[in-house]
């Protein structure tokens, strides 16, 4: 059953639609990540769900119960939707324990719960009396998470909660947060502009573009079979080739590439491959049709440029291959897996 259902949701600021005709379901206990470039409507969506904005069209349902439509809405403070914001937004005048207790202070077992929550987010109990400014960025976010969890919300909204942290800490805290939320079984929606963070966190990925839903689904599926070139490029480095397609096989600059799920397809189109599907090997005689033009190593990744002179095709992509032919050498390119036909 869906905890959250969004039907034809739209929001307008003056004459611009920040969000239009959005449909989305979030299942019980699932993790959804909403990604998109700046101005795609991510934050508007989150504020609409939390109750800080009122929709202009459509409706939002929580557990099947309407909580907002274009006419009316449940006030934000009665929705019981948890919220963790960028940089935590801890109340600076309250201690760690008081921050966590903030939403449950009327409950008799509040103090016990605060200790349990500190344990849950793996913060030492001795930190309870600290002031927010005495904590590191990661610790602040753990307190913010504990504070939001204290009320056992129906749904947890995370608004770029890791973006202010260092890279290493960010990955660590993201994994910890995913674990904690999985333990509590609370459905979660993460808003971020970082595609890797989104794909690493979610079991449902939602891509927004100019206020509309570009695509939603399993992250791996979206990565390998995006709806169009823009989604493909947003989700990762892409190799997009013109191809002649016959009976589910594409004929392109890389030769014959089998396509997934396009058995009866015939005609002209564009196909997508991901860089990790390509393997470069030194020339072994006749089959060497490509020339490696340049290789630039950045740590473990090589940015390569290969060219097929007779077809005037040049491909540039990052490669994780340990060994590569030298720049200037002729080489062959082998393709693993299947390609994907892109929509217009």
């Amino acid at each position, binding site marked *: 059953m869906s905890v959250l259902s969004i039907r034809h949701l739209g929001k307008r600021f003056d004459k611009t639609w920040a969000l239009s005709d959005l449909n989305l379901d979030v299942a019980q206990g699932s993790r959804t990540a909403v990604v998109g470039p700046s101005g795609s409507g991510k934050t508007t969506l989150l504020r609409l769900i*939390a*109750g*800080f904005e*009122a929709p202009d069209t459509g409706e939002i349902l*929580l*557990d099947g*119960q*309407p*909580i*907002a*439509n*274009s*006419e*009316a*809405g*449940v*006030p*934000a*403070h*009665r*929705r*019981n*939707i*948890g*919220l963790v*914001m960028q940089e935590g*937004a801890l*109340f*600076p*005048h309250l201690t760690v324990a008081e921050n966590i207790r*903030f*939403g449950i202070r009327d409950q008799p077992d509040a103090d016990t*719960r605060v200790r*349990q*929550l500190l*344990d*849950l987010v*793996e913060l030492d109990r001795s930190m309870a009396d600290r002031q927010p400014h005495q904590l590191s960025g990661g610790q602040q976010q753990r307190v913010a998470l504990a*504070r*939001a*969890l*204290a*009320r*056992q*919300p*129906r749904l947890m909204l995370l608004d770029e909660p890791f973006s202010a942290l260092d890279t290493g800490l960010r990955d660590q805290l993201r994994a910890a947060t995913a*674990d904690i939320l999985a*333990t*509590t*079984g*609370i459905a979660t929606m993460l808003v971020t502009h970082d595609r890797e963070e989104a794909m690493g966190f979610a079991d449902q990925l939602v891509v927004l573009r100019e206020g509309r839903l570009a695509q939603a689904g399993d992250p791996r599926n979206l990565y390998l079979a995006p709806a169009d070139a823009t989604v493909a490029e947003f989700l990762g480095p892409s190799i997009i080739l013109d191809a002649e397609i016959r009976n589910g096989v594409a004929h392109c600059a890389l030769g014959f590439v089998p396509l997934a799920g396009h058995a009866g397809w015939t005609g002209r189109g564009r196909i997508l491959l991901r860089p990790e599907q390509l393997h470069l090997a030194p020339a072994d005689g006749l089959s060497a049709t490509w020339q490696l033009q340049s290789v630039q190593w950045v740590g473990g990744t090589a940015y390569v440029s290969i060219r097929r002179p007779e077809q005037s095709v040049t491909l540039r992509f990052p490669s994780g291959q340990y060994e590569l032919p030298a720049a200037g050498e002729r080489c062959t390119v082998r393709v693993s897996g299947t390609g994907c036909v892109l929509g217009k």
Partner: protein
Amino acid sequence: MTLALPGTAETSFPLRMERHRRSGVHPALLVAAMTVAALALIPAGFVVWVLVQSGWETAASLLFRRRVGEILLATLLLQALALPLCIALALVLAWLTERSDLPGRALWRWLAVAPLAIPAFVMAYAWDSTFPMLRGLWPAVGISVLAYFPLAYLPIIAQLRRVDPAVEDVAASLGHSPAKAFILVVLPQLRLAILGGGLLIGLHLLAEYGLYVLIRYDTLTVAIVNQFQAVYDGPAANLMGIVLVACALGLLALEAALRGNRRYARVGGGAARHPPMARLGRSKALWVLIPAGISALAIGLPLVTLLRWMLIGGIDAWHLPELTAALAQSSFYAVAGALLVTLAALPVAWMAARAPGPVQRALESVHLQVGALPGVIVALALVAITVRVALPLYQTAATVLIAYVLLFLPRAIISVRASLAQVPAELQNGAIALGRSPLAAAVGVTLRLAMPGIGAGMALVAMGIVTELTATLMLAPIGTETLATEFWARTGEFDHMGAAPFALAMVVLSIPLCIILHRQATGAR
């Protein structure tokens, strides 16, 4: 890890939906802001009413007189001399205390702010009782400069500290000497601070009453109050009030014209470095004479005079029972006035910080315009309105408090708005997401966190009320004995010894004002 918490709570059904409020401002807040705006329009409305009601012939016969011309000339002459001198002195002191290696800069900085603790009429009393021969234009200019130059000094040092030191480095790399770089790239960035401080001083000079009475220099405000005391609510005082308002509008227009609309804000974060310091070299000792001399004249002489009169008078002349009573009355007015004016400032300041827009901006400018009108106009307007439509309020403490609300409203709005703006809206939203009602979140989180700033703003207003003389004299009910009115009554009888304790009490009560303003300008804790 073992799970100590149950999963999710059942949401309590049914969740009740409420109609959306699209404007972003609660109607009650809007009504409150509009009520205060209506109150703030009273003095301006009074001015228009006097203009319409008097008719051209009455106005011409009362205004086009040689005496009025002389007073207007005296008022303008004072502005023309005192204003540039205040700004020049403020600039020199700011440069010495912020950008040179003058010994004891921190001390001189404090002493340059300290004259604000001495009300202008107390400073005039000190000079007058020491040198009774001081009369007329030049003494009036001199004491005005000593009393009011800190109002320009404060914004100038605040802005000097904000100027990105990198711009001077760039100017040097382009071949300009440090002195030339200061004039070419730093001075232009001080323009808004100089104009803002200058406008403030100009408006204070227009509104000042006590100082010029003691030095026997008749300005418009002095003439209006004298006229008012002779004939309550008479057309002559009201019409001269219009000339005074015209002068205030002239100052505002001059400031707006000189300010222009060029961009002065620093671009980007700037360099986090200390700005270059000018070396004064062997002439250091000579340079020290400037702040030392000014401090001796602006603080030293008044304090020595006050203490001397108190010693000569002895404990009997301290009038301890009257002093205690006046202290109690002043405290009542100060605390009640500060609370009221902060409450009055809250609606529009909240809108400015949380829901800015055209309506809010229009309301805010209606709130702020009253700050340009001298206290004497506010008092005339309240007398006219209470006598005609609210007689029970005439000569009551309530009217005095309304006058304070009008006089100090802009000051309160600025501090309340700045304090609210420093509290991120996310904190309030966070509290709402955790189940607090919007009102509870606003009070418990936003107001709670803004309280130190709001409190400092209230302190500024309270100190302003303690030393307010003109409107208090004109409006206070008979029998009111505040520190300012008691002091004034005694100087009127040339009782220098009797006046001194009341003056000293006002100075002591104003010391926190200097501390708050110094802290705001320097950002020091």
